[in-house]
């Protein structure tokens, strides 16, 4: 369409000088704009009214030939129309831009239910999570953490713990021996419990207690070994040892600390703890600790959870401390046992199979 043809077509409609009844120029513009469905078409339509040869421009030009009264009268009227047309143009422009954007966005839409891409994360073994939780709980009341040898000397594993060679209590723990002797000539062994760490740690810190009054307060989690293998026994398992020695740490304190521990570990006060007389060479009085949940699937069943007691005076002596002055408690619990109870796992062997399908459940 050429400019001249436009002018010819439009001019008669908007020019009152012709003497005809003027058609409504604003309504025409609105209709024209609405009919445009692209930005280019709209700009063309705009020229028809607001361009150099557009209808409004022509009207404005026409004003120059009018009398001042007419000028005043028509000038305001033409400006009103111009403003209306400009507003309509702006609105149509925005609307076209929105439509274009919406179309683009629609074409770009994705299936947000597809899985995210990338590598994923692994996870910590459930028994080690228990280990860490125990460290956190005991750490919250100032227990240190220690670890030591797993191939251990007879003295640390047994004799220092008041369990000399041939003692009947040695048969309580079936021991793995290795093909090496210690400097005492006795065969080295795989530690049957984490209790040797009581002795090692206490000997390292005895002077701090004797001279500076710094209590011995430690947990020692780690691997332990016994000649045993079935659904409830593994030849290798984890224990956590606890030891608190000071001038006044009593059996009542042991009950308090361990009960608190179980409630924090299982995150419920709805459990009952009982201490039952037992025997371990390295504690006296000795207690087996049982617990019972007040609710949940294991409700009402007594579960053995730990061995414990007041450290035997001979052992305190082997710590390098005066048993007259220093007393305290020790306990040893199975980390697998705690984990099984916490998660309702029935078979110990699952912990040692390395099955991804099992491990992922704890990630």
């Amino acid at each position, binding site marked *: 369409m050429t400019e001249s043809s436009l002018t010819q077509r439009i001019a008669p409609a908007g020019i009152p000088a012709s003497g005809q009844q003027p058609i409504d120029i604003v309504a025409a513009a609105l209709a024209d704009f609405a009919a445009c469905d692209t930005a280019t078409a709209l700009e063309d339509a705009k020229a028809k009214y607001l361009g150099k040869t557009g209808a409004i421009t022509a009207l404005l030009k026409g004003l120059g030939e009018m009398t001042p009264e007419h000028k005043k009268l028509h000038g305001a009227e033409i400006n009103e129309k111009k403003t209306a047309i400009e507003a309509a143009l702006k609105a149509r422009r925005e609307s076209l831009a929105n439509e274009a954007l919406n179309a683009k966005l629609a074409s770009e839409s994705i299936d947000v239910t597809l899985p995210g891409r990338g590598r994923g994360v*692994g996870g910590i073994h459930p028994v080690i999570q228990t280990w860490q939780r125990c460290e956190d709980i005991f750490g919250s009341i100032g227990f240190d953490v220690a670890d030591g040898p797993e191939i251990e000397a007879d003295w640390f594993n047994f004799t220092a713990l008041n369990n000399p060679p041939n003692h009947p209590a040695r048969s309580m723990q079936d021991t793995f021996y290795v093909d*090496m002797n210690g400097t005492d000539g006795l065969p080295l062994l795989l530690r049957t419990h984490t209790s040797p760490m009581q002795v*090692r740690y206490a000997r390292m810190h005895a002077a701090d207690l004797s001279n500076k009054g710094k209590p011995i307060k430690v947990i020692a989690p780690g691997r332990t070994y016994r000649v045993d293998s079935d659904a409830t026994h593994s030849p290798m398992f984890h224990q956590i040892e606890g030891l608190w020695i000071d001038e006044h740490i009593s059996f009542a304190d042991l009950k308090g600390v361990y009960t608190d521990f179980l409630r924090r570990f299982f995150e419920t006060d709805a459990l009952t703890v009982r*201490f039952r007389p037992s*025997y371990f060479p390295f504690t*006296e009085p000795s207690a087996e600790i049982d617990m019972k949940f007040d609710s949940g699937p294991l409700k009402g069943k007594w579960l053995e959870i730990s061995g414990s007691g007041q450290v035997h005076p001979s052992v305190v002596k082997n710590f390098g401390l005066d048993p007259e002055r220093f007393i305290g408690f020790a306990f040893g619990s199975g980390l697998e046992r705690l984990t099984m109870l916490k998660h309702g796992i029935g078979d110990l062997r699952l912990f040692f*199979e*390395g099955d991804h399908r099992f491990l992922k459940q704890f990630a």
Partner: protein
Amino acid sequence: MKFAESWLRSFCNPSMTTDELAHALTMAGLEVEEVKPAAPPFTQIVVGEIVSREKHPNADRLSVCMVNVGALSPAPLQIVCGAPNARAGIRIPCAMVGAELPPDAEGKPFVIKQAKMRSVESNGMLCSAKELGISEASEGLLELPLDAPIGADIREYMKLNDSVFEIKLTPNKADCLSVYGVARETHAITGAPLAAPPSREVRAVLEEVLPVKVLAPDLCGRFAGRIIRDVNAKAATPAWMRERLERSGQRSISALVDISNYVMLELGRPTHVFDLDKVHGGLEVRWAKKGESLKLLNGNTVELDEQVGIIADANGVESLAGIMGGDSTAVDLETTKNVYVEAAFWHPLAIQGRSRRFNFATDAGHRFERGVDWETIPQHLDYISAFILDICGGEAGPMDDQTINVPQRLPVAMRIARAQKVIGVAVSAEEMAAIFMRLGLAHTRDATSFVVTPPSYRFDIEIEEDLIEEIARIYGFDNIPALPPIARNAMRVRPSAERSLHALRAAIAAQDYFEVINHSFVDESWEREIVGNLNPIKLLNPIASQMAVMRSSLIPGLLANVRYNASHKADRVRVFEMGKVFSRDETVADGELTVARVSQPLRMAGAAWGGAMPEQWGTPKRGIDFFDVKSDLSAVLPSAAQFVAATHSLLHPGRSAKIMIGGKAIGWIGELHPRHLAKFELTSAPVVFELDVVPLTELTEKAFETVAKTPVVRRDLALVVENSVHSDEVLATLKRAGGPIISTVDVFDVYRGIGIGERQKSVAIRVLMQDTERTLEDTEIDAALQKMVAAAQEQLGAALRA
């Protein structure tokens, strides 16, 4: 230890239910592991007498019995029975019509109905011991004594409304290894009266004494014995004794053996009965000599030495002292006529560990190594003699009782305040005194302490704590409060330059590795063939050959994890473990945390196998390679770590590296050597790593550097070098040559192929230059680049890529 509740209650009968009694024992330290009814539930089974037995007209194996059940039926009952021992005159358990037999496996009782068996009417059922649920074996109908009252309820007649207690005794409770011992303890716990120990007197008819010489006072403290002649070894053990033995889990063997077992169970007194006619000369009690051996009752022959106590006669060793008798003087059902009965005190230290050395255990050894009362030896010898005379007949000689060297019971003091401090409760002195009274612990007391002289049956009271334990135990652990401890506070925190093991685990887990826990003992072939450790530490008593040696590397275990998961259809496996490894090391000495000659450092290792990424949409599939895992390690290694090409028997020689920090090797990374793939049934190679943990826990303190505001200039270089030239050499050469304005040089691409010579590669390098003070001039930049290229040409034979 197993025994019938009724036996226990015959000595001490507290007014408690079975469950209450079991709980009370458990809470005093005698853990009742199991309480089982002596017989399962059943009803309307009575003593019947077979009046007549006819063959069943239509069945060879069945018989038709007429059974008298007394007042319960005016006429004898006709019952069809299949037992071979059914015959007229015997008394047997008879289930009446309407009787409920013990429940089956599903727990449903079996109800006896009137029935026709092969067209003959049957009005009940005659029962075996197995059918009553009181024995595992079925030997036909259970034949009752001929004086069993006809029509009496079997449960009452056989005392089946009883329970069997199984107690798990701790090694210190030697005094409770008998029914009477448990009764004594029941009295202490409950206060119910305790009957006097059972005793009998024996009148010696003969004058004969077997000469006994005790040559080892450190072995045998007291030795008593007597001859009994003309016994009937074939006599039947009375039913009541058999029943108590059977409920205690002891099979009835012969009267003499049963009597000995009975006295051991009731009083805790092991005794031994020799066949007197097989004893040559007198007896000698002594330590064995090296070279001597003994064939035991159980048929085993053991080699002896000076560590083992024995009883010998003129012919040689007869018996393993306190543990087991010998074969040559054993009593025999057919031939034994005259016996020698012995009861002795063997010192616990002389018995401990001996039977374990020979790899067997006996009830006698179990008791003697824990300690058996020496004072009651004469009473107990009389008691067993009286049973032998009653049951087997015969005539007894006088008791020969020699006391050589019995332990001394030293008084033990317990301070009241000390007991209160250790227990944590102010138990009153009066209460303590009452506890000692109930335990039968004779004592004196003053304002501050008690002094207890322990009885001869207690082997666990030597020091103050032993008494404190008795106080706590009988006072009741339940009555001791659970106190929140009061302690001084001191802040504790890990040094900021130290990383916890858990943080280290979390860091590698965040790289998509799952933690596993593998056994520390492995198959020896893993160590020898995979790790290349020809001298692993061996277990002396492994439970299986695949758990025979201590691992010196975590990697084979991880490879087994890969295999396990691959065999369970996983196409991508990533595992890690943190654990100790073990090897012989002469440089290690005994120390605070070390054991001489054993190196046992903590390691962390991982294995990645299968896809580099999980199979997923929009991501091309690619197998894992060295560089993926190298990148994973950047999450845990300090930035100063270097990867230096090196070979390891486990790893692909061209795709493995030592990891160095500060010139020290701290671990390995590499692709598994292809020769090990088959062993783990893998078709593609996993990439593995193993690191020492300690260096990874040491973090470097963060040091602040000014961030320069001057512009950074980037220039890219493409250098063609021989394949053998390592990229870190190229980068180091460039950096050195470029001088201080070079802030970074790194590789952003490596290309091999068209346009590049064979055995060559093109390395694309990004160079960033910056001066922290001023903007660089173009001339400086060009000069630096020229110097860098020149150095690469000269030192590495590099050429700028055309």
